């Protein structure tokens, strides 16, 4: 059986469609955003409703420096993609390294904050509603940061090993979209937890 090929009467102009990677990442971001919306809703709903235990304003200190680091890492990853497009591989790798460093600083601060909350303020996930919603929301975000850091580190390793060329620029851009999403979520989480919630 011959495969039918409808013959066009006029030739089709340039046929452009969006990039699969970008659309796929946009879909993932949509789904993940919906998950975060539910955790944020639970956090906001339970504000002030804990029956016992430490309250947000008792124990929370806004992590300004960590936030600045994380948000700057969005800028560094953007430059990394830009440099890769311009075929300046080494510079792209440096910007990528800066991104990983800034992200790791953020995680480090989160770790210290949690250590302090658990050991000096007695706030755990099972203490009260605040503890449950705080650790779930911030923890969900931190786990997304960790996954992003792993992926960025892999990209960095491949860069250093000389395997990355300008043809990978779009893939790096897809990864950077994920990283921008993680940062945008932090803006929301920071606002909800450390500004509205306190």
């Amino acid at each position, binding site marked *: 059986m011959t495969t039918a090929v409808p013959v066009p009467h006029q030739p089709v102009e340039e046929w452009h469609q969006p990039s699969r990677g970008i659309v796929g990442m946009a*879909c993932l971001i949509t789904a993940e955003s919906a*998950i975060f919306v*539910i955790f944020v809703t639970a956090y906001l709903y339970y504000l002030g409703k804990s029956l016992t235990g430490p309250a947000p304003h008792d124990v929370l200190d806004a992590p300004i420096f960590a936030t600045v680091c994380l948000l700057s890492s969005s800028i560094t990853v953007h430059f990394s993609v830009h440099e890769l497009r311009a075929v300046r591989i080494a510079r792209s790798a440096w910007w990528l390294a800066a991104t990983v460093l800034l992200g790791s600083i953020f995680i480090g601060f989160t770790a210290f904050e949690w250590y302090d909350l658990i050991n000096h303020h007695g706030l755990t996930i099972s203490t009260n509603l605040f503890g*449950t919603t705080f650790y*779930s929301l911030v923890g969900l975000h931190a786990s997304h940061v960790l996954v992003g850091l792993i992926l960025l580190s892999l990209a960095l390793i491949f860069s250093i090993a000389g395997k990355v060329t300008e043809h990978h620029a779009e893939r790096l851009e897809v990864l950077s979209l994920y990283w921008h999403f993680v940062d945008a979520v932090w803006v929301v989480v920071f606002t909800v937890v450390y500004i509205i919630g306190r």
Partner: protein
Amino acid sequence: MATQTPANPITETTLRLRRRGRMLQFLHEWITTVDHKKIGIMYILYALVFLLIAGLEAILMRIQLAVPNNTFVSPQVFNRLFTMHGTTMVFFVGMPILFGFGNYLVPLMIGARDMAFPRLNAFSFWISAFGGLLLYFSYFGGSGLYGAGSAPDVGWWAYAPLTARVFSPGHSTDYWTLSIFLSGIGSIGTALNLVATTLCMRCPGMKLSRMPLLVWLYLVTGVLVFLAVSPLTAAQIMLCIDRYLGGHFFDTQAGGSAVLWMHFFWIFGHPEVYVLVLPAFAFANEIVPVFSRKAIFGYPAMVSATVGIGFISLTVWAHHMFTVGLGAGANAFFTFSTMLIAIFTGIKIFNWVATLWGGNIHFTTAMKFTIAFLFQFPAAGLTGIMLSVSPFDWQLSHSYFVVAHFHYVLVGAILFMIFAAFYFWYPKMTGRMLNDTLGSWHFWLFVIGFHLTFDFMHIPGMLGMPRRIYTYEADRGWAIWNMIVSSGAVFQAVAVLLFAWNLVRSYFKGDPAGPDPWDAWTLEWSTSSPPPSYNFAVIPTVESRRPLWDLKHPEDPDSQYE
């Protein structure tokens, strides 16, 4: 080449190993495949197995309820039956079968060679499959209050605080949570694939306004999955935190809210039923025109109505919570939004009828199921509108009227269209026609059984029979109705078994189907049956919504009318 009993034992061993080698090779090919067609077929077969299992669970329940004060199963077993029946049917029959058809058809219909992310496609299938196996493993590994080996028994909505560790000890609830969590990840992956494929891989000339309506509906379904399944994923994580890390999300003793679980679950649960029904509409959009010999009436309105349904379905969830006490304002809002969605759904019904009007109707088996759908779906919608009126719902919430309503949609609309899709696309997938006589038997037995069961099920509901009760007193006046409802189940069971037999027998003995047995117009009918693994030797270029019509009628192409 003869393979009679050889005298030489060495040759015998070689032939046996060659056969086993071929068998292993066959298995290996299917387990490692990333071909959307094979993955689609695996989804469908997987779902069919679970359809039979969940159907058996329904039959056991109907035997128990056929007469008053029955002792066929214990109340504990009955609780597990309705939990497993609901959970299985939604997550391991409905979703997989509809994703299976989507996987198979979407790339073919848009002139692509595969999905956008084939390995993600395979991953999504296998993780969903694992979820189903995990749920049924609970029968062996569940342990808990009732002794070793029990499945979840908390209802398919698993309301808090029943699901708290203290009220549901053991692991049966955890099997429910984790299996749905994994199935959700698979669903999100497949939805991602559908959206990316549709937006990025259409063949030249196939603008969005020229896509088959099935592809449009799967696109909206995909987006809906992102927005609906994700809240359920979040809620499952919260439930696990409550059960294992001492969290208090739904712990009423610590100030938590059981109603919050209800909100989160139904924010998933309502759009979920639209995720299930939109593919059913998609099948109707393809089958009705072909067997009316007319192009679909009102393509732009169909697209707009679908997008409208998608949006509004996200705003109606609390019509499942009218009896919780949300207040007059909330009840009024959700009544209004639920009624609003009926307008958009109505537009689709009118357009299907308008397509039939003046057409040359061919009553193939697929068309019979579709016409039944066209009657049954509006009827289901009408009982839905009745329930959307919150004071009316206060009388009938949690009664058999609600059970009758949603089964009318799930079975009367969705399952009927799934059957239609089988009869329509089985020739494409296997190269054989399904037997028409068996098809007719399947159809009529199933219609009789469906109406016996679900038409009459509304009555005990109105007479006050609650759902999820394992038995009832003889003096309630419900006995005769329950007996009729249960009798319908027998017809449906026989019909489905005939259908399963038809599927198997026709694979080996069915009439060979050519590439285009129905004289249809979309691109999947331009390939051989079954299609080659690469789908199209040459990627087609299209100029209208019905590329094969243009090909078959070059003197009267659709492009001059669009």
